[in-house]
Structure formats: structure tokens, C-alpha cells
């Protein structure tokens, strides 16, 4: 029995469409997969809060008909932590770009990972600051051109999966924009996971990144991503030489053992209240 069709417009502020992203932009596909995952989980849209910072990707909550919060640059996770602490029974999703999550919000990112608070973080990694004019970001590949690196980038790029794992996130996955079905699966698993989940999506910004690196349209850039990615099942059978220059996708880490932050906080309240009751 095939899956019933998803009513995308039910989850969207349809009157705001068409959206402001460029033709062929991967963010639209990320938003669509996100809605697909929410729909397959059967969550009520009033129980979901979608929070973002600043940037192209962070415009996504504006189009989503849920509880949405558009916050300051890089601070989406701080606001999300506050929302989660105030309403621990709600589902919190943060959608963020690579610059927003890992450069300006880098500190918030590692500490949210460390806390293991039940938030799903979706990072749309398009290798560049798209909205502000194509400056290089911490995920711009070595040698790539950007508005601020006209002769090639000499900074090594961040590996967001390793960073999230190292900082203590309990669900880490990486998908690519060329495979919406897999992306939807990682979103679903990440949202279901009780703890901090990070899903990195390799996306295309042909307007700012592609135009400066001989990939000026969506198709060329999505093909470039497709050529680089290898699933983790396939990668297990490949030699280190074959994996040179490849990016491994798939579910990278899943730990259900570690304690979640709001649970620990509830326990703390209980403990302290019991102590106070004894004294009184």
C-alpha cells in the first residue's frame, strides 16, 4: 500500500507562496521533506515550534503554518532551549543554515549538543553565506571561491557530523538534497529521537556559491553534490583511496542511552521539592 499523499499546503502559509528562494534552491526541498516527516509522524501542527535565526534557510519558518519564531543571527538554539524548557511536551525543530548554526551560532551549537536537550536541529549546508552576498562560511570547501575569497579559500572546512558527535549530540545524520526520500527518513528519525539530534543536509546555492565556482545552475550543482556523496553502507566496502574527496551520508550516530536535559531538570525539581517538604 503506497503512502497517502501529503497535504503540503495544510502545513504551509499558502498565501505567502511563491517563496523568496531562487529557482532550484535546495531549501525548498528541505522544507518539503520536513513537512513529509512531520506528516508521517502524525504530529499536530499546533504542538510543533519551528525556530530559526537569520539567513536564507532561516526564512523557512515564515512559510510554515506552525508555531514559528524568527530570531537573531545564530541564536536560534538559545531561543529553542528556552521554548523547550518552558514547554517540554512540545516538539521543537530548529532550521538553520551553515553560517547561522556553526559560525555565528557555533558556541550555542556545541553547548546545545552537550546538553542533549530534545531539539531537532536541521542544518542546510550550502557552503556559503547566501543572503548576505556570498561570503565564505566555515563549511566552504578548501580552494573554493566566494565573495571574500576571490583567489580561493585557504581555510579547512568544518565536518559538521564529527563536530556534533564530538560535542555530544545523540542523533547525527547527514543527507543530501539530491535524495529527498532519505532526507525525509533522517528527519523523521531525528524528530522521533528523544535527545539532541543534528541532521546536516548538503544543499545547493548556485546563485552565490555555484556562480563563482562554474556551477551556475541548480542541475549542475545538484549533480556536483551527487558525485561527491557516498552512503555509509557503500563507504564501508570502499578503500581509503576510493573515499578520497567523498562525503559520507547516512545515519552516523544514534545513542538512546544518554539522559535528556528536560527529563533531568524535572527530576531535579522533584528532588529539591521533596527536600523542601521534609524541612517544612
Amino acid at each position, binding site marked *: 500500500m503506497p503512502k497517502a*499523499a501529503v497535504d503540503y499546503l495544510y502545513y504551509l502559509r499558502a498565501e505567502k507562496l511563491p517563496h523568496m528562494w531562487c*529557482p532550484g534552491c535546495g531549501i525548498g526541498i528541505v522544507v518539503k521533506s520536513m513537512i513529509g516527516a512531520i506528516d508521517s509522524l502524525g504530529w499536530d501542527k499546533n504542538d510543533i515550534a519551528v525556530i530559526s535565526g537569520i539567513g536564507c534557510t532561516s526564512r523557512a519558518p515564515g512559510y510554515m503554518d506552525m508555531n514559528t519564531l524568527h530570531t537573531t543571527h545564530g541564536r536560534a538554539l538559545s531561543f529553542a532551549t528556552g521554548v523547550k524548557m518552558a514547554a517540554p511536551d512540545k516538539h521543537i525543530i530548529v532550521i538553520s543554515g551553515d553560517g547561522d548554526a556553526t559560525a555565528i551560532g557555533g558556541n550555542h551549537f556545541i553547548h546545545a549538543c552537550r546538553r542533549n536537550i530534545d531539539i531537532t536541529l536541521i542544518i542546510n549546508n550550502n557552503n556559503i553565506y547566501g543572503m548576505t552576498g556570498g561570503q565564505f562560511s566555515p563549511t566552504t570547501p578548501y580552494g573554493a571561491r566566494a565573495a571574500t575569497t576571490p583567489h580561493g579559500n585557504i581555510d579547512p572546512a568544518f565536518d559538521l557530523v564529527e563536530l556534533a558527535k564530538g560535542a555530544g549530540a545523540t542523533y547525527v545524520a547527514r543527507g543530501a538534497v539530491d535524495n529527498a526520500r532519505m532526507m525525509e527518513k533522517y528527519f523523521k528519525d531525528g524528530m522521533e529521537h528523544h535527545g539532541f539530534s543534528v541532521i546536516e543536509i548538503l544543499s545547493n546555492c548556485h546563485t552565490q556559491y555555484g556562480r563563482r565556482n562554474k556551477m551556475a545552475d541548480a542541475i549542475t550543482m545538484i549533480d556536483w553534490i551527487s558525485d561527491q556523496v557516498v552512503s555509509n553502507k557503500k563507504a564501508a566496502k570502499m578503500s581509503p583511496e576510493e573515499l578520497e574527496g567523498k562525503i559520507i551520508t547516512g545515519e552516523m550516530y544514534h545513542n538512546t542511552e544518554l539522559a535528556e536535559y528536560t527529563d533531568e531538570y524535572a527530576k531535579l525539581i522533584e528532588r529539591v521539592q521533596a527536600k523542601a517538604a521534609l524541612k517544612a
Partner: protein
Amino acid sequence: MSENILRYDSKKKDVVILIDRNLCKGCDICIKVCKPECLALVDAPDKWEGAVVDVVNADDCTFCKLCELQCPDFGIRILRKDEVGKIQFGDTKKTAAEQ
């Protein structure tokens, strides 16, 4: 349905292809992912992008839904005949004008 919603029924299968001309930006992604080559870009002088997707061969659609999943603009839907009308689609501009 408004004139900006294009509807194509497959003669071979229980498949309906819907395209919203308001939302399509002519990015070419759906055409690239469609293996049976059901879709093509056509000129659209009324649109800023200058091109919009259209169906050239609805009968060969295999219901794989890749075009729908990969469309960044929510501009194309592949539905069963009985799902048309139950699933909201199109007329987003009209909603904006009403408000």
C-alpha cells in the same frame, strides 16, 4: 480550478499530474529526475523566469513521485484521481487577494 492550474490525466493509469504555474519557477529539477520524460520546459512570457514546466507525456508517468519530492517550489503534484480535491493545491494567489 483557475487557469494557472494545469491538470493532466493519464490514460493508462490512475494518475493525475497537477502543475501550479504561479509557483513553478522553471528550475528544471523535475524534468531532470523524470525517467520516462513526461515533463518539459515551455516558454512563459507572463512570468519573470520566462519558462514554466509542462506535461508532454502524461500516459508514461510511473507514479514514482520524484518530481513532486524534488520540487523546491511545491509547484507539481502527482495524485490518484480520488485524491484530487481532497488535497489542497493551487489558488495561493487568490487566497492572498482575499485577505
